[in-house]
Structure formats: structure tokens, C-alpha cells
């Protein structure tokens, strides 16, 4: 049982992170804390994808070092050992995901500033109370 958990420990970590983020998004009243929960959840997904690309046994970052440029075009195909470089595709996709998460976080923070200017609070219940009293 312990061996099973240790062999896939990365996925257990991400389950915990998704749990923390989801609880913050649903259970917390403060809108900034909800946003932080969303970011924790996004980090969990990004870490999950990056860990999918990991390879044991001496694999390094997917960058060709040394005379790679000199070898370019001279039958490099046989020289490259696939097992010595980690899978680069999850890294690329998560680069895109990080950009999208930055964009959503920025727009959400701008919206939070607008909400605070209008209601003078970031508490969800107080905002709903103010709106109910105003008859919206």
C-alpha cells in the first residue's frame, strides 16, 4: 500500500492542492481568498501536467547542449537518445496555460478593485446584503 502511494506520490500531492483550492473557492467569504483558491487549483493542474513529462534514469531538460548546432543537418537523427530528455510537450502546453491564468487573474483583480470601490467591502455576504437593501 505504501509502495503504491510512494510510486504515484505526485498525484496525491495534486489531489491535496485541488482540495485546498476548491475549498477556498466554495467555503471562503472573502472574494480575494476565492481568487487565491482558484490560483492554487490552477497551480495543481500545471504541476500535474509537468510531472506527466518527467522521466527517471538521467533524463535532463530538453535543450541540446554543446555542438548541437554543428551537428545540425548531419544525420543528428541517430545521435539523439529520446530517453535522455524529458518530455517537452507538457512544458509547452503549461506555458500557454500559465499565460491564460495570468490573464484571468489580472482581469479578476481589476474587477475586485471595481467591486471594492463600489461597495467598500470584499465580503460576499455584505455585498449581497447591500444589493438586497438597494432592491436590485
Amino acid at each position, binding site marked *: 500500500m505504501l509502495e503504491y502511494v510512494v*510510486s504515484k*506520490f505526485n498525484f496525491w500531492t495534486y*489531489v491535496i492542492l485541488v482540495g485546498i483550492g476548491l475549498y477556498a473557492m*466554495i467555503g471562503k467569504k472573502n472574494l480575494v481568498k476565492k481568487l487565491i483558491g482558484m490560483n492554487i487549483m490552477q497551480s495543481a493542474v500545471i504541476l500535474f501536467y509537468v510531472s506527466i513529462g518527467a522521466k527517471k534514469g538521467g533524463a535532463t531538460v530538453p535543450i541540446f547542449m554543446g555542438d548541437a548546432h554543428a551537428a545540425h543537418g548531419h544525420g543528428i537523427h541517430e545521435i*539523439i537518445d529520446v530517453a535522455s*530528455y524529458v518530455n517537452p510537450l507538457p512544458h509547452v502546453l503549461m506555458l500557454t496555460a500559465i499565460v491564460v491564468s495570468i*490573464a484571468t487573474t*489580472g482581469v479578476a483583480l*481589476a474587477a475586485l478593485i471595481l467591486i471594492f470601490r463600489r461597495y467598500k467591502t470584499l465580503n460576499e455576504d455584505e455585498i449581497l446584503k447591500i444589493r438586497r437593501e438597494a432592491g436590485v
Partner: protein
Amino acid sequence: MKAIALIAVLMTGGLLIYSIEGLPDWGDPDSPASTHVSPEYIQDALEKTATPNIVTAVLADYRGYDTMGETAVIFTAGIGCVLILRKKRKGKGD
């Protein structure tokens, strides 16, 4: 509200833990993600794009249009922030 959140988290966590069984071990070189198309990218990237960094080759060469659309996402987010945060002219709105 806290109870609802806790129930939702526990149900989601149970589903995720149930799905761990079907995923490959950490660092497994023979996992499906590392054996399907990624070997071709690792072998062909330098020859086809002359870029030593495979991540850069895939991001800016193979998926160039995707990255171009990404700049549109960033631009839209910036425009959105400016429109939300700009000062309103006096006498308009509240």
C-alpha cells in the same frame, strides 16, 4: 456553506483518488505521454527548426499560430483591465 464546501471537496477528492489508479508511475519513461508523439518531437526538432531548445521550437515553430492567439488573449486581458479601471468622466454613470 462550510459543510457544503467540505462535502464537495471530499467528493471531488474521492473521484480524483479513484482516478490515480489508472495513471502511470512517477518518472516512468514508458508512460503513454512519453511514447506517443513526444519522441518524434525530440528527434526532429533540431533538424527541422534549428533550435536547440525543444520547448522553444514547439512553442514558436510548431505551434506558432497558437502563440499568436495567446498574444491576443494577453491583449484582450490588458484592454479589459484598462476599461474596468479607467476613471469615468464626471457627470456620466455613478
